[in-house]
């Protein structure tokens, strides 16, 4: 399966065409093709995972910084198959980053290319490159997509364009899978843009209403603006890496210093702009909350688990380039980490003031993406990918939960139509709770492990500032998730519909995802380290990326922070709505409450200053800033383009250029008019003119010749 990984994207591509042409006529209106194809793809992905796991770790990569590694591979001396540790001999390769130099045999990527086309003397190839990262992504994407398909059969039941929706879902999954398996940057661009197209089609699914198509267009244009950077990046790296699109080659050349530093920086910045656009990082994140206009399964699939993480995947895939360009190993500050950090904070703050459940989740996704980008920025490669892996599950779970809730109350507005739903929708409540707790990062669940590793990574790699940002982010995340859960499931039901538990096709995916949200974390738990082992690959070994396994102290710190956040958020609601808080009899809240009271005086200033200010001024300011300034700028650019288009068209095009052309025409006509007076129609006058001219000519001839 590793060799012909290209089967998986083609599978969904074929299902797209089948649904498009035959979907309408099938009893399930194309849903069964979609689910069948995705099911098969998921199975194949599992096979790929299994094949990858028990693939012998043969390739040996010298562990150290890029400068003194001369680049061509060591020949494989017969390391014992399978077990990785015992017979590693320590090679004293001095490494500035203080990493212990040792030859770690890893699994080599399986690459299979075919020539796509040739221009001049350059042969452009397309093909698949499968390594740990790809396998993990394959597994996640196909699983989430499958669950979303199952979910949408019921959720979208009776929709006017049911078949078209499933066709678009298949096409989208093809795009993501194509990006994930592709071995060349150009082919990755194909997957990247295909996803952009599908997100446009899916966000604008109900395009009868104008704001939906506006949201779709905004999403497409913002990501497209980012793609300008991506295009420039790909082109720069193509030429800098000696006219090749091949990712492995580019990484190799970047790490062995074969690419000039300026070209590398330009390429990396270009790619990162593309990532900012696609993964909704700080300046270009405004489209993601608006993209909630699309149906919820779309939000779950695209705007939580797959498309938005494509940017993070790209950074991880081309990590050699970023590592060298931004000198991540050296600690301190670098653009990726800064952008990631900023996104974490502002998005988390914004999540506070949202009333729409999907908007809260959207801002939380932006914030979590910020986390992953920050992780990659601080050099915690495995942590970032692990967080991506776990986040896909619990965020997918939360979105589907929100879908199930809205399906019941026919609205997304938490304040107006929700509240007290735990009584009516037990399974959705339990799964949603698991999801939010996992997101907050409490001990046994997935979020805890991945977020914790990021904090550890930040600390160890010399990025203390970002560790702090991570902790504050965790605090805020826990707080707004508690608020969201509280508003949705606790208190009295404020809506006027009569909510009931969603039918089986909706609850099954919720339960499956809940299980994953719990279990996924264990994959990289201290003793296991399985995830790290799977995703270990050449690039970050060559670059000398340090992976730091679990440490107790930071874990304790983050847990305390998260618990405090939940308590404060709960306390906050309790305090402000005194009567309502008292009436709530809930074990978790009471224990959090008693914990808080005895530290109350110590923290009064802290909550007053930070929580108060964060919840009050800054959030609203951030929101205002976000809506007015950034959105304002985006709209202003649109309007300015329109107006300058009008102006240039009316003045330059019509007046000047066309004017000159018409002017020539009228000039000729005018001159013609003058000449007309000579045509008197009297033959003799013509004769007179003729002879007169003839004689003058003769005279001229005589005198001059």
């Amino acid at each position, binding site marked *: 399966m590793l060799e012909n990984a290209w089967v998986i994207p083609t599978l969904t591509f074929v299902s797209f065409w089948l649904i498009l042409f035959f979907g309408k006529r099938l009893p399930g209106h194309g849903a069964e093709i979609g689910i069948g194809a995705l099911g098969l793809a998921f199975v194949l992905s599992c096979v790929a995972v299994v094949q990858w796991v028990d693939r012998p770790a043969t390739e040996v990569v010298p562990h150290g910084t890029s400068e003194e590694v001369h680049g061509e591979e060591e020949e494989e001396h017969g390391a014992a198959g399978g077990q990785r540790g015992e017979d590693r001999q320590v090679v004293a390769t001095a490494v500035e980053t203080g990493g212990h130099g040792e030859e770690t045999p890893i699994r080599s990527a399986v690459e299979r290319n075919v020539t796509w086309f040739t221009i001049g003397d350059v042969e452009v190839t397309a093909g698949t490159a499968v390594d740990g990262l790809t396998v993990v992504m394959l597994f996640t994407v196909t699983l989430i997509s499958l669950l979303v398909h199952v979910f949408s059969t019921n959720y979208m039941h009776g929709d006017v364009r049911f078949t078209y929706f499933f066709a678009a879902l298949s096409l989208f999954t093809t795009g993501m899978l194509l990006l994930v398996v592709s071995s060349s940057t150009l082919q990755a661009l194909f997957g990247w843009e295909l996803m952009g197209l599908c997100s446009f089609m899916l966000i604008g699914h109900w395009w009868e209403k104008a704001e939906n198509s506006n949201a779709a267009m905004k999403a497409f244009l913002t990501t497209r603006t980012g793609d300008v950077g991506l295009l420039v990046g790909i082109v720069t790296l193509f030429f800098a890496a000696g006219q090749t699109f091949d990712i492995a080659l580019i990484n190799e050349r970047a790490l062995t210093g074969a690419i000039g530093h300026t070209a590398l920086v330009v390429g990396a910045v270009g790619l990162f702009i593309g990532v900012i656009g696609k993964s909704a990082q700080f300046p270009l994140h405004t489209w993601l909350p608006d993209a909630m206009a699309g149906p919820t399964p779309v939000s779950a699939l695209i705007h939580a688990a797959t498309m938005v993480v494509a940017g993070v995947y790209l950074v991880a895939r081309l990590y050699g380039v970023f590592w060298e360009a931004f000198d991540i190993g050296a600690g301190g500050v670098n653009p990726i980490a800064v952008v990631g950090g900023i996104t974490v904070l502002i998005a988390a703050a914004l999540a506070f003031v949202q009333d729409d459940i999907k908007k809260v989740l959207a801002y939380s996704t932006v914030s979590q993406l910020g986390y992953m980008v920050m992780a990659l920025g601080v050099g915690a490669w495995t942590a970032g990918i692990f967080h991506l892996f776990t986040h896909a599950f619990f965020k997918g779970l939360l979105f589907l939960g929100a879908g199930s809730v809205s399906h019941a109350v026919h609205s997304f507005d938490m304040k107006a139509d929700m509240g007290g739903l735990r009584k009516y929708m037990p399974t959705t409540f339990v799964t949603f709770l698991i999801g939010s707790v996992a997101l907050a990062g409490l001990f046994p669940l997935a979020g805890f492990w991945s977020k914790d590793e990021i904090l550890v990574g930040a600390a160890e790699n010399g990025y203390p500032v970002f560790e702090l940002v991570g902790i504050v982010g965790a605090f805020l995340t826990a707080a707004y998730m508690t608020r969201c859960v509280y508003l949705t499931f606790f208190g009295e039901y404020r809506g006027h519909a009569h909510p009931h538990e969603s039918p089986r096709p909706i609850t099954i995916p919720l339960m499956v995802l809940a299980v994953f949200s719990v279990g996924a974390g264990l994959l990289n738990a201290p003793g296991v380290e399985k995830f790290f082992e799977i995703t270990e690959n050449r690039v970050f070994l060559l670059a000398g990326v340090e992976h730091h396994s679990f440490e107790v102290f930071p874990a304790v710190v983050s847990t305390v922070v998260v618990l405090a956040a939940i308590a404060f958020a709960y306390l906050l609601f309790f305090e402000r709505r005194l009567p309502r808080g008292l009436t709530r009899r809930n074990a978790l809240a009471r224990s959090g409450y008693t914990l808080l009271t005895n530290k109350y005086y110590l923290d009064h200033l802290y909550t007053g200053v930070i929580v108060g200010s964060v919840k009050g001024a800054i959030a609203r300011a951030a929101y205002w800033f976000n809506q007015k300034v950034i959105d304002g700028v985006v709209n202003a650019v649109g309007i300015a383009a329109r107006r300058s288009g009008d102006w240039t068209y009316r003045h330059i095009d019509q007046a000047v250029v066309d004017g000159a052309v018409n002017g020539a025409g009228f000039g000729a006509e005018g001159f013609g008019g003058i000449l007309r*007076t*000579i045509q*008197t*129609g*009297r*033959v*003799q006058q013509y*004769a007179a003119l003729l002879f007169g001219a003839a004689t003058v000519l003769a005279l001229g001839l005589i005198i001059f010749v």
Partner: protein
Amino acid sequence: MLVNQFLVLGAVLFSIGVYGVLARRNGVLVLMSIELILNAVNINLVALGALQGASGAVTGQVFALFVITIAAAEVGVGLAIVLLIYRNRASVDLDEVDLMKG
């Protein structure tokens, strides 16, 4: 005899013919003036032919003959046209014939 005698005479007749064509209002008179011009040309032809000696003289005369025949054809058609103008306008005054005015 100087050849110029004949050539200058031809030039005089030619100029008078041109005057006649330009100044006369009556269609027939204009045709007559054209005849004058043609005769001037004939004189030149014959005179220059004679200047060239025997073969030239013959050529001159042959061409003069051709000019005369053409003049005859021309007058025939010219008068037919003048007749038509007369029939349409009851007058041969060329000034009125300016349909082609721009």
